[in-house]
């Protein structure tokens, strides 16, 4: 596997990750997704307090050549956004699972998080996606 997939995180089919943390979910872009996008130059963040909906665009990530939506992995209110990304969006490339987190959302329905893929399932998913390319 050329791409880092971390144990303990949940993953979506659109390549977001979510990590449970004190009643909220921290959300970011997977290493696979940041590789595919290339050098990230711009991030549009949701407003704190905004209601996001699972499967709907919550943020926009742009590389030099591409515009990508970051979809909310679950419903809920945005509690915090990573404002450091506004000036240094490339942090998503450098540390997608750490400093490159994008926003935090309160967990209303924990089953939404449970339903996402775990590490082995996501690894299998991206291998398939690579093959289809």
């Amino acid at each position, binding site marked *: 596997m050329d791409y880092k997939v971390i144990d303990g995180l949940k993953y979506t089919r659109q390549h977001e990750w979510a990590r449970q943390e004190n009643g909220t979910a921290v959300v970011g872009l997977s290493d696979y997704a940041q590789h595919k996008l290339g050098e990230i130059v*711009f991030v549009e963040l949701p407003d704190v307090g905004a209601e996001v909906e699972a499967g709907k665009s919550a943020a926009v990530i742009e590389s*030099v050549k591409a515009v990508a939506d970051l979809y909310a992995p679950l419903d809920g209110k945005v509690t915090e956004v990573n404002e450091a990304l506004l000036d240094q969006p490339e942090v998503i490339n450098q540390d997608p699972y750490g400093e490159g987190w994008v926003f935090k959302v309160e967990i209303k329905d924990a089953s939404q998080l449970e339903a996402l893929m775990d590490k082995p399932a996501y690894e299998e998913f991206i291998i398939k996606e690579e093959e289809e390319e």
Partner: protein
Amino acid sequence: MDEPKKTPFYDKHVALNGKIIDYHGWLLPVQFPQGLVEEVHDTRKRATIFDVSHMGEVTVEGKEAEAYLQKILTNDISKLKDGAIIYSPVCYPDGGVVDDILVYRINSEKYFLVVNAANADKDYKWFEENVFGDVRLQNRSADYAQIALQGPDSKEILQELTAADLDGMKFYRFQPDVSVAGVNSIVSRTGYTGEDGFEVYCKNDGASALWDAVWEAGQKKDLRPAGLGSRDVLRLEASLPLYGHELSKDLTPLQAGLDRFVALDKTVPFNGQEALQKQKQEGINRKLFGLEMLERGVPREGYPVKADQEEIGWVSSGSYSPTLDKFIAMAFLDPEVARQSEEVHVLIRTRSYRAKITKMPFYRRD
């Protein structure tokens, strides 16, 4: 759709782990593993090699070749010397653009035209429709491979492989029948990056040997491959127009700011002359301007540009510029409003982002 075509360098791109895309019917690398941003820096600081075999080539021969070209080109080639190259739009009678091309004068009765890949078939048809007298056209697009070696180290790399005097070759000059590592080539000091550099054309059967020789000679200078993605950013930084963006059948060369390539007063009539003269007299409602974003945001093609809430035009090309570390764009704007506006806004999705009008080119080499 026909199957996309492979250039003679396709296997080289695959071996270098290039990400291949279908570009106007050609399988070409959009970027290599070092990434688009690095490719831009590599080109500006050292040298990179591009596969530009998708470009079309047409030869024009005959006693009336010059008269014929004078009719189809907006630029004036009457002073063009053997071994010199001129850039010119090709227009329809209404002033809209068929294509923008390079014209290589081999001699007064033989010219070599280089046209955009996306337009190659359309151009050839247009060229044929306009033929008169002793003019013979040949579409050589399928016969030629082409590499672009771009960046400050280009000359040193290429000079190792040829006896031709590259120091003596000025910008927009060329030599036909040059041996490059034993491969018969046309070598010109041209490019689409805003850097010094060369473009080398050879027949397909010599292509692989040519690439390998350039690649090997380049290794001392850390030569890297570069793809279509960085090529597009490099040309934007240098404010070079791209057909389909800054030029089209619905845009004239005057709107694109290419006035110095339109010989309005050419003594022989040319396609589009009257329409362009009229446009010049009556004024232009949309003209190309440079934009620099004053806040972070990527201006992309098609985004509206506003001044005081009024829409005054659209972005034709835009990107993050790695060389300038700024977000830049070319945009067609209402010239009267644009000239009075200190600041304009680019509408990116739902929000307006501040930008200022700035001189082009955004980047010029020292």
